[in-house]
């Protein structure tokens, strides 16, 4: 057979056998293709990349060139790195606080209370503390605008003045009506400016309204005493306080002032074993109710009944005729009346109702109790709430009826926060001239033709008269950031003044009004400016005669129809308030003192009414609330303490033009507020409340509501027990020793650590659970002072809020202590305790022992130090912390687009101006926690060293302590026996021979430490809560 000679060609080239093919025939691979022949092989790519990466890495080693740019002409008062403090005045509508503004390099960075004011007495609130961030709100108007059609266009101030002036002239020429609408105005100089405007345009009427009206109180006083006013209340003089739905610690009239006064009566020591007794009758659980000794659950429709009942009970004792109505079965009413009568002259009854009839009866009760002249001062009237509901209603109907030709909205937002806002907003389109002067556009500005933005209050000169003869000066702490102009100047310019400088006007007003030739005026002015306040002697209180018609009032109350369906309470929450500052993320992320909800709007219901809602992990259902033809949909929040059959909805949500932060959260419930008996009523009857199937998760920072009876966490007693001769706390934890399990010793006596020696200072803190009302001002103050990141709703749901200081709010339970499942459930009408919880700066700190990189260590002054730059983020410390106060940075919250809305203070150029330059902004992956404001400690020590003297007590004040209106937080050096904290805790060294050892003994019987039995030896002591209850009182 012939061998097979079959030949396979590799290709046509082989067949053709061309020379090129022959030359390369022995090579395994053919020539590379043309596209690979560009000198950029895959290997080259990798080589280039490797080189590139290392080159970039090397280049990165070169530090960037940084500039240092000094002033051209350094202002005398400003030294870089040294803070300046200016006394000023916070006003927001009718809310007031005398403040001290801390500025660094010309930027306000922190607000604290001004102790020189006898009105606010150094107190602040969460709203005041947070207002510094509102200054740097990105949604502020950059300058004046004019609205042509739907679009708003920039305009110069000159043009705006010309156009507005011309239009006003035109309106005045044909006799048209002009209105200036505002909230309560505290500033006498502003009122003078408005008066000048009115003089020029005599058809002008000034209409004042309040977001939450107290018109009923004004009318009732007019009926009782012949003059519409709100008197000064002095809770500090009251030994029995009865409040019927008045949230005087949270929102009613002047909470900062009342909080200060209230705390004085709640403070107990071994020397002063007396405190006020506080009864609260209310439907929702307010912060005031949470602090009450006896809390009666009523429906809103029963507010009048409670007052009538109290009136009749006290009238019987006073020998006065009873009025019709009342219900003696109301729980605690008889007891309250008994106590009130016993404390005649030291008693105070207040009611939150805006119903004139209820308030007349309240006046009647106070008159019988002799409160006028003692706890109520009618001579020193207050100006916080001057709103006239009738005038405002007339204004809205005038605008609707086309009777008004020009409206100037002076720093107010009625389109959002007046119940008839929708109607007003729609009707404004047909008004010839509409101007808004608010520093932001907001809902009302969006309907106005001209936007003439005022300064933020921190940029402006102003004055205030919160109370009669108590004056307050506001000075700018920063030059205006944008092209804004004082609204008073605008008014005067539009009134035809050739030139207006509000500062000069203010100064000359003060010269005419207050300067009586004592010394030269400059000295007088400088002192007023330095103090921030000017207080003229109070006029002697004239005896007032109560002349209210109590019978008519009682019958008006009796005629109030009883409710068939649910009853609704519309209230101001403890964080957002009336919504004027709701674009402030500090407030959005501040947990409401009671519900602990953040970033969310909700409707509160009693656990009884929410039986079929499994409110675990805050997962809940939407409900519809329908009343008088209006309907809103909100998720339900189950609220222990809420009266069954009632629901509560906070105000301040549902903003549409507030800015990125607030817009779109919740619904606006101002439109639900109704006009009843001539004043606005924030309670509504016959509400339809229906479940939907839509699910929602509310962001809450605390979802476990009870402390399960663990006295190691919260210790409390009653005043009756406390007054016993040798009172001691019920609970003293002990531990067994190694020698014998039966041999028990105090946990402090044993330790596996050697302990510390604090030669210089030993910083400690005492927190009085009795005076802490849970308001949350300290939380905001801590956030601002320490550049604490805000994280937003989603992250809070994941339990990643960054707050260094939280306030744990615990409810009591009805279940017996051994029913472990039962004690998790809060009582129907629980007792409430607020416990501020922050790093306890343990002397045997469990976090320190587990850190693998020694990023958290102990200082020679007792501080548990956290070193961010050393932390590698293992989170062992947080796991080992018994108090759960260490917070981990899961993200880079600064310079991160994702957090721009929630955390503008670290993500926008404007917002960053608020950061405290002395505190590092933490990055991703590190742990952080309370530092005891170490920057303030260091600054205080340095000042003492520079002045070559020992440190004085009170020189270092932590941010939380400074913000605490009630003085519940005391911080200081417990090595110094003369310090306030040493005296309060009655501290002494355990071993007198070695006074600098860590071990200290407190002789104050109320002082205890949380989780004392684990032997971590915290540097924070809590003072046992004392409730003013009868000795045999069982759980309320």
């Amino acid at each position: 057979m012939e061998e097979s000679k079959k030949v396979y060609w590799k290709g046509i080239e082989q067949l053709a056998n061309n020379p090129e093919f022959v030359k390369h025939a022995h090579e395994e691979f053919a020539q590379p293709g043309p596209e690979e022949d560009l000198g950029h092989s895959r290997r080259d790519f990798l080589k280039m990349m490797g080189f590139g990466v290392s080159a970039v890495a090397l280049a990165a080693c070169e530090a960037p060139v940084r500039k240092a740019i000094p002033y051209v002409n350094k202002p005398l008062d400003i030294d870089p790195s040294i803070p300046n403090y200016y006394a000023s005045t916070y006003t927001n509508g009718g809310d007031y606080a005398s403040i001290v503004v801390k500025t660094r390099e010309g930027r306000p960075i922190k607000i604290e209370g001004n102790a020189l004011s006898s009105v606010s007495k150094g107190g602040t609130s969460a709203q005041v503390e947070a207002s510094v961030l509102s200054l740097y709100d990105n949604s502020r108007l950059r300058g004046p605008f004019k609205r042509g059609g739907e679009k708003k266009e920039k305009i110069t101030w000159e043009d705006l003045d010309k156009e507005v002036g011309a239009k006003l002239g035109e309106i005045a020429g044909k006799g048209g009506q002009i209105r200036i609408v505002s909230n309560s105005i505290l500033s006498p100089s502003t009122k003078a400016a408005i008066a000048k405007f009115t003089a020029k345009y005599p058809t002008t009427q000034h209409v004042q309204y309040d977001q939450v009206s107290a018109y009923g109180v004004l009318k009732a006083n007019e009926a009782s005493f012949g003059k519409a006013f709100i008197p000064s209340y002095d809770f500090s003089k009251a030994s029995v306080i009865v409040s019927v739905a008045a949230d005087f610690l949270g929102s009613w009239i002047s909470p900062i002032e009342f909080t200060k006064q209230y705390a004085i009566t709640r403070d107990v020591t071994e020397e002063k074993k007396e405190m006020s007794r506080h009864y609260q009758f209310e439907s929702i659980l307010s912060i005031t109710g949470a602090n009450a000794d006896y809390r009666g659950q009523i429906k809103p429709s029963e507010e009048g009944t409670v007052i009538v009942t109290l009136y009749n009970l006290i009238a019987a004792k006073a020998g006065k005729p009873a009025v019709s109505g009342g219900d003696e079965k109301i729980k605690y009413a008889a007891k309250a009346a008994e106590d009130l009568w016993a404390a005649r002259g030291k008693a105070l009854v207040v009611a939150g109702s805006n119903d004139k009839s209820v308030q007349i009866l309240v006046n009647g009760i106070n008159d019988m109790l002799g409160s006028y002249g003692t706890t109520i001062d009618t001579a020193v009237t207050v100006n916080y709430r001057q709103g006239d509901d009738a005038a405002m209603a007339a204004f809205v109907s005038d605008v609707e009826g086309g009777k008004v030709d020009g409206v100037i909205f002076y720093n107010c937002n009625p389109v959002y926060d007046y119940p008839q806002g929708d109607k007003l907003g729609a009707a404004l389109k047909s008004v010839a001239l509409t101007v808004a002067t608010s520093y932001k556009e907001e809902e009302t500005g969006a309907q106005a033709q001209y936007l003439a933005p005022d300064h933020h209050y921190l940029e402006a000169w102003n004055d205030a008269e919160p109370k009669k003869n108590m004056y307050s000066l506001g000075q700018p702490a920063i030059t205006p950031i944008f092209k804004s102009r004082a609204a008073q100047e605008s008014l005067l310019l539009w009134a035809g003044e050739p030139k207006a400088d509000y500062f000069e006007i203010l100064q000359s007003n003060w010269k005419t009004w207050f300067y009586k030739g004592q010394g030269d005026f400059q000295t007088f002015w400088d002192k007023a400016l330095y103090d921030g306040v000017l207080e003229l002697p109070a006029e002697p209180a004239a005896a007032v005669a109560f002349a209210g018609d109590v019978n008519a009032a009682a019958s008006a109350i009796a005629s109030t129809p009883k409710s068939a369906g649910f009853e609704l309470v519309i209230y101001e929450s403890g964080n957002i308030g009336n919504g004027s500052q709701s674009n402030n993320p500090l407030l959005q992320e501040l947990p409401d003192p009671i519900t602990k909800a953040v970033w969310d709007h909700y409707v509160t219901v009693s656990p009884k009414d929410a039986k079929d809602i499994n409110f675990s992990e805050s997962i809940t259902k939407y409900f519809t609330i329908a009343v008088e033809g209006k309907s809103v949909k909100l998720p339900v929040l189950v609220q222990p303490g809420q009266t069954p059959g009632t629901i509560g909805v906070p105000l301040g949500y549902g903003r549409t033009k507030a800015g990125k932060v607030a817009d779109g959260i919740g619904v606006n419930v101002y439109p639900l507020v109704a006009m009843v008996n001539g004043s606005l009523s924030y309670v509504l009857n016959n509400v339809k409340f229906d479940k939907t199937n839509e699910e929602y998760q509310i962001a809450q920072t605390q979802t476990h509501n009870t402390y399960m009876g663990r006295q190691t966490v919260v210790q409390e007693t009653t005043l009756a027990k406390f007054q016993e001769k040798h009172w001691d706390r019920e609970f003293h934890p002990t531990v067994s020793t190694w020698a014998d399990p039966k041999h028990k010793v105090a946990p402090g006596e044993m330790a596996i650590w050697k302990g510390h020696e604090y030669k210089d200072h030993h910083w400690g803190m005492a927190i009085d659970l009795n005076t802490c009302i849970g308001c949350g001002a300290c939380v905001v103050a801590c956030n601002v002072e320490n550049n604490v990141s805000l994280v937003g709703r989603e992250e809070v749901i994941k339990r990643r809020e960054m707050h260094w200081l939280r306030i744990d709010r615990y409810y009591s339970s009805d279940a017996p202590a051994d029913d472990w499942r039962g004690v998790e459930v809060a009582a129907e009408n629980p007792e409430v305790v607020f416990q501020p919880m922050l790093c306890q700066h343990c002397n045997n700190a469990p976090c320190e022992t587990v850190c693998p990189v020694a990023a958290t260590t102990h200082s020679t002054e007792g501080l548990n130090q956290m070193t961010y730059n050393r932390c590698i983020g293992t989170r062992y410390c947080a796991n080992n912390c018994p108090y759960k106060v260490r917070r981990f940075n899961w993200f880079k919250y600064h310079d991160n687009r994702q957090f721009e809305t929630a955390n503008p203070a670290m993500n926008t150029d404007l917002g960053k101006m608020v950061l405290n330059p002395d505190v590092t902004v933490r990055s991703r992956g590190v742990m952080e926690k309370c530092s005891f404001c170490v920057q303030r400690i260091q600054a205080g020590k340095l000042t003492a060293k520079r002045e070559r003297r020992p440190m004085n007590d009170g020189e270092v004040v932590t941010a939380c302590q400074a913000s605490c209106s009630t003085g519940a937080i005391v911080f200081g050096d417990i090595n110094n026996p003369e310090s306030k904290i040493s005296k309060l805790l009655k501290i002494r060294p355990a071993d007198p021979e070695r006074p600098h050892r860590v071990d200290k003994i407190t002789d104050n019987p109320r002082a205890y430490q949380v989780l004392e039995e684990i032997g971590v030896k915290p540097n924070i002591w809590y003072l046992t809560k004392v409730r003013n209850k009868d000795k045999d009182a069982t759980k309320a």
Partner: protein
Amino acid sequence: MSSDSRFVPLVLKTDTEPNMNRNFISSACKFLSLVFVFAFLNLTSNAQEISKEPAAISAGETLFNANCKACHRVKSKLVGPALQNVYDRAPSIDWIKSFVKNSSGVIASGDDYANKLYNEFNKTQMTAFSSFKDADIMNILAYIKAETEKVAVTQVPNGPVPPTGGGDGGVSKTYLDVILAGMLLILVLLLIILGFLVSALKRFLDQKELSEEEKEVVHSPITLGTVTSSSGFIFIVVFLAGALGFKAVINGLYSIGIQQGYAPKQPIAFSHKIHAGQLEIDCKYCHVGVMKGKSATIPSVNICMNCHNQIKEGQQTGTGEIAKITAAWENKKPIEWVRIHNLPDLAYFNHSQHVNVAGVECQTCHGPIETMDVVRQHSLLTMGWCIDCHRKTDVNTKGNAYYDKLVELHKEKSKTPMKVEDEGGLECAKCHY
């Protein structure tokens, strides 16, 4: 001051410590009252006699350095005339007092001597020191007189403060050389002894009966080749090379971010050598924040203009560089200096703690700044560098009541002076928060 002065609000409370000037003025005052009593008792001549008391001289020196030195020297002419013998030269002591307090007033009054002086110095107005008391001026004169006379007697070299640190001058150089030479000698001797040993062993082995292979081993020559190819040698070389390489990499990594020696070009060729070195202007005259704040502060243009209102021509750069300052002043445009000393944001450093409280010289950290035409970063500015100093440095507790208790407690336990370390100076939260 800003023209719009209504936006310069009143200071309520400032975190500053009492002005230093006020401090020494007050102490000077206290002292002066003494001097006056003295003078009063010795009413031999008149009250205008210039004191020779050392205390007056030193008080005067402090005042002179803080206030006068920017423009005057005792021996040489600067912006203003040399001040030696001014007390004899000027019409009267009273004249000097009124001129210092209000020179323009004296000139305007038509005083001959004052006008002559004014014209001689290109109509340069002397700053009015209205806050000076007569006693202050007498103290300054006392200092001037002392200086005038002292300089005539002995020429004391008044060099800048030498940079501190590193001074372990215990062993002299020749002594070290002797030791080195001795050790070398011993090494050579050792080699020779080893050589002898090897040949002796060889001889001993040759006498024995050895196999061929063993003989080969014994006689195999020790050449460079055999040494270098031995595994031991290779191991040592590789190990050394590896270790050195590793060290080099580590050193390289450690140097990342360290800018020691960083001396960038500045927008204005400002020379510390001239200002701080030759003219001996006090550092605090320009760096005003150094005693009271975290930041020493780079001087604002108005401080430069205090002198450069008059001085328009520099020694090294002529008029060009100074013109930049004037331009910045006139155009109200700040000068963008390049920052040399950059601490990371996570580290807190406060100048007043170190300069005011501890009394650390500027040169301790910033090096011989008075010799630098262009400022460079002298120190490492690493944490190790900080810690090292905190370990070595004694706390300046003298006259500072803050430390009294600490010193007392420290003395109970230790005989060495209290270091910064003993006071918690190495703790994290002293610098990181």
